[in-house]
């Protein structure tokens, strides 16, 4: 830095540190200090600009004296070297944590990985592993739902709708592979298999709540269900983990799922109005329609893939 620049830097710092002193007085102070520095340089040719500035003191300290003489509160004292080192230390720590985060991100990447052939969804580099075909989820090695594979039991049945006014089928399932198709019969048909972790056999639970028919599976583990639903009946599915397949339905469909895969195969002859949302994952191309007579298909998935 040249002599002139050092002088200017000093005066700029001084001006800034003078805080609430009126601008005209600040100008006067700056001019006077500059005059002093010039005097000192002329009268002592041996002294460098650094020596003269050092003798004056830190600009912040000089400014504080001006403020104190006026009964004004001084600005914060100039940073002690220790503060600088603390800041560097803090920034260093921050940089290290950022680097660690990057390493962790890399280790857990890809955030989500969908393997269609194996029917698995891996989240956070395998931390959460959803195996749709088995309706099974495991988190960092801990497996849910695959402990008692040997106790797999089948159960099936139907719920006759004749004489009843049921407009909606609500399905609540966890860890399930679900396949929904239309049936020509006036009934909801189910054909399931599931393993149980207790002596109780898994069974389907059907409840009527007003115009809504609720379908659940008790002791639901490794469940696989095929559902036959009459056309036009609204379908509402809430599920956590699994694979959910909807085959050429003539229904309004609403799905809320956490992890897994939703397969919605449209009937070529029908029109659908799609509302699709995946938080982490992929959505295939769907050709929707805005027509009034189109079936409303609302599919919401947090982690995974929606495909047709």
């Amino acid at each position, binding site marked *: 830095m040249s002599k002139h620049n050092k002088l200017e830097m000093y005066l700029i710092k001084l001006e800034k540190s003078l805080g609430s002193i009126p601008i005209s007085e600040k100008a006067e102070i700056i001019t006077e200090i500059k005059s002093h520095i010039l005097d000192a340089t002329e009268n002592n040719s041996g002294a460098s600009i650094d020596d003269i500035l050092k*003798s004056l*003191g830190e600009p912040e300290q000089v400014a504080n*004296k001006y403020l*104190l003489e006026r009964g004004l509160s001084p600005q914060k004292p100039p940073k002690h070297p220790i503060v600088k080192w603390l800041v560097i230390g803090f920034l260093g720590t921050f940089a290290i944590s950022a680097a660690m985060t990057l390493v962790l991100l890399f280790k857990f990447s890809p955030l989500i990985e969908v393997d269609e052939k194996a029917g698995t969804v891996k989240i956070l580099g395998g931390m959460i592993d959803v195996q749709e075909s088995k309706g099974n989820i495991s988190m960092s090695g801990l497996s849910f739902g695959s402990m008692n594979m040997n106790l797999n039991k089948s159960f099936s049945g139907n719920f006759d709708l004749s004489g009843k006014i049921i407009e909606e089928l609500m399905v609540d399932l966890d860890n399930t592979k679900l396949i929904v198709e239309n049936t020509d019969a006036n009934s909801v048909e189910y054909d399931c298999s599931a393993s149980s972790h207790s002596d109780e056999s898994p069974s389907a639970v059907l409840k009527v709540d007003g115009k809504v028919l609720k379908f659940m599976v008790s002791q639901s583990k490794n469940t696989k269900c095929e559902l036959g639903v009459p056309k036009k009946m609204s379908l509402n599915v809430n599920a956590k983990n699994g694979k959910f397949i909807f085959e050429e339905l003539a229904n309004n469909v609403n799905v809320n799922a956490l992890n897994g895969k939703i397969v919605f195969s449209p009937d070529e002859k029908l029109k659908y109005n799609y509302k699709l949302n995946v938080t982490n994952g992929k959505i295939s191309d769907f050709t929707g329609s805005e027509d009034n007579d189109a079936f409303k298909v609302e599919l919401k998935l947090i982690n995974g893939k929606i495909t047709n």
Partner: protein
Amino acid sequence: MIHSYAMYHVMKDLIKNWLTQIKKGYLDLCILSLIETKKKSYGFEIISLLSEVDVVIKEGTLYPLLSRMTKDGLLVATWHTEEVLGHPRKFYSLTKLGKVNLKKMKTEYQNLYETYDNIKEIGASNEQT
């Protein structure tokens, strides 16, 4: 007697604090007196002349002091550009109020010194009796 290195430092600090306090008013008196003698003077000259009589004042202290005394109305400042080469200088001279004040300050300072002398005499007279 200085018994140890630590004690030496404690004493040094105590003296330093005491000096800072006592010099605060003393410096005002020195600066005003000098300006009175010189009729008018500027910062760099004040520092140089004071240092010749072993009164050490840092420039970082002097300028804020001059600024405050000007604000208090003891001094009046004028910028001189003609009679000096190169750059302008800010000259200070005493105002009427400054002159009256300085006179009072001198008397008070004299009184302080006399009081201190009197204290010494108390000791001396006690020893005699």
